[in-house]
């Protein structure tokens, strides 16, 4: 085996320029693939992290029909107190759950005393929200980033409204809301923070204390519109969601129908489709890499066989078994693949290290995204295996041809 590979290496060295060009082509493919996967993966992680850590949580529980009409922020689809209690009971028995936050969601009028605009508000318990969406704090671009997220009488407003209404931290504003019964109520708030906008649902919402939300809506009982859930391990999303759905399926209305819905973040944000598109593009790039390796290695190996027909005849005549001749040419393909993959991985790892020192930043909507690509060992292994496997596969046909060559015909070849 080692002797075969040594001879294969010698044979590759006889056409040095061709070998280097082919290896370079494979290297370029590997680098393109790995850098794309690293950058796209980083983008996905940044976006998913932002969406789940600063807004949605990993899972959300609503009363059935609430999500379908969430744009209107309906007040008639609240979860009443007993229903909230049942959800909390189910959440507490689920070991995969790290934290949850009971939210009130409402639409309100925002006034700075000279002009007004509409605002979507989340009434939150600051401690629970902090534990469920720890990234919310990182979106504070003005105001206290360290203390209590939002205290009674305070409001955190999105940057868009702060700019549009020329409001800054410390200013007093009025929030006016209409409750389920049609009663209008208003309350003064102090702007405690300005939030950076984020992509996805809830990315331009304001935040007030849950007690203020109830007061605005003249709500006597602690009802809820939404319960956001954070998991200890996001990889267990599907299992936990299914388990929770099963547990909450018992909460039924008078008609015996289940009244609660569990949604994963994937179902709640359109970014999930972008993430799937990225996965699809990754697949296309993998297919292109496979094509590059197949075509380049097969081309080189076909030429190698054609140019060395007499040599093949000689080796066969002096007793080399067909299998060994096959091995010799497959070995050349294998070494080409290994060379291209090894150099490609080395360049990619170096490039990713450089990109981590000098990260890429680019605007995404109103945000600036900073990409720090990460190359997972699994991805490196997968791409290397793919390249080497394809190189071997591409060399099989020429190698088979060489091994089946009639020694007499081969020896006569000019």
């Amino acid at each position, binding site marked *: 085996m080692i002797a075969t590979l040594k*001879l294969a290496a010698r044979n590759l060295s006889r056409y040095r320029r061709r070998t280097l060009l082919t290896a370079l082509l494979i290297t370029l493919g590997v680098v393109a693939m790995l850098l794309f996967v690293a950058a796209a993966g980083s983008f996905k992680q940044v976006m998913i992290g932002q969406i789940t850590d600063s807004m949605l949580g990993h899972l959300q529980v609503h009363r059935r029909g609430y999500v379908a009409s969430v744009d209107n922020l309906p007040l008639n689809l609240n979860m009443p107190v007993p229903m909230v209690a049942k959800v909390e009971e189910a959440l507490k028995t689920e070991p995969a759950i790290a934290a949850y936050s009971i939210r009130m969601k409402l639409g309100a009028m925002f006034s700075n005393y000279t002009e007004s605009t509409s605002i979507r508000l989340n009434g939150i318990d600051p401690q629970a929200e902090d534990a469920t969406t720890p990234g919310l704090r990182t979106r504070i671009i003005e105001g206290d980033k360290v203390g209590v997220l939002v205290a009674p009488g305070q409001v955190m407003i999105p940057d868009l409204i702060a700019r549009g209404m020329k409001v800054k931290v410390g200013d007093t504003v009025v929030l006016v809301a209409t409750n389920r019964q049609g009663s209008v109520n208003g309350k003064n708030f102090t702007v405690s923070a300005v939030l950076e906008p984020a992509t996805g649902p809830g990315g331009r919402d304001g935040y007030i204390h849950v007690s203020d939300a109830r007061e605005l809506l003249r709500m006597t009982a602690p009802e809820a519109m939404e319960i956001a859930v954070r998991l200890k391990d996001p990889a267990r999303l599907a299992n936990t969601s299914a388990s929770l759905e099963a547990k909450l399926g018992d909460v039924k209305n008078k008609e015996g129908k289940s009244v609660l819905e569990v949604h994963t973040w994937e179902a709640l944000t359109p970014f999930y489709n972008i993430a799937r598109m990225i996965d699809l593009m990754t697949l296309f790039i993998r297919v292109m890499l496979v094509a590059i390796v197949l075509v380049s290695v097969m081309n080189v190996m076909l030429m190698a066989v054609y140019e060395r027909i007499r040599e093949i005849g*000689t*080796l066969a005549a*002096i*007793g080399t*078994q067909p299998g060994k001749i096959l091995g010799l040419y497959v070995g050349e393909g294998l070494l080409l693949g290994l060379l291209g993959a090894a150099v490609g991985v080395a360049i990619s790892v170096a490039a990713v290290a450089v990109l981590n020192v000098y990260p890429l930043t680019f605007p995404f909507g109103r945000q600036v995204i900073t990409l720090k690509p990460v190359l997972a060992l699994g991805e490196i292994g997968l791409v290397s295996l793919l390249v080497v496997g394809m190189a071997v596969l591409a060399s099989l046909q020429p190698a088979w041809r060489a091994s089946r060559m009639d020694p*007499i015909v081969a*020896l006569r070849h000019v």
Partner: protein
Amino acid sequence: MTLIHASSLAKTYRAGDIDVPALKDVSFDIEAGAFAAFVGPSGSGKTTLLNLVGCLDHPTSGRLTVLDTDVSRLSRSAAASFRGENLGFIFQDFNLVPVLSAYENIEYPLLMVRGWPEAKRRERITKVLAAVGMADQAAKRPDQLSGGQKQRVAVARALVGEPKLVLADEPTANLDHDTAHRILDLMKRMRDDFGTTFVFSTHDPKIMAEAEVTLTLEDGRIAHAAGATSPAAVPGEPA
């Protein structure tokens, strides 16, 4: 001891729709230790006969025994094994592997065909290199050697596995006259030193004179046999 026994050998090639007979009813014996030549003009069937004896091709009919093995119908793999174990080949164009040094070319059959361990290979190669007078050229690649030196390496490669029989197709055709004779002398000396039987093809009258046994082919038949061949070599004619 008879090393090669051929009985009523025939070989016909198919060229399009036409059958082209290359060998017709060829019978002969060659004894162990012979220095034999298949001679005759181009197209007489020398190379075809050499290919059959070398298990590179199958006869269309007849029986061919080499080293007591019926090689007429060996499979591709069995033929390769037989060649690797028992035969050595010398080619007109030397056919050395260009990326390997003289030493490595000689080492090839031991390493890739026989799978000998390194110490045993080194001992044998050193001996053969010295025997062909190429010990000081061992590290050179074929493109750094003269034609005669290349053929010496080829002889060494053919002999290194201690084969019973070495087949050489026009081994001197690409060499000048003096070098050709030196190669033939070398082959004879190897026969004497190692007891190897040499069978070669040639159409050069000066070279065929060096052979101790000659089988002259004309139009695919043995027209004349000289030396210690079997009486059956030429039907109706005593050897």
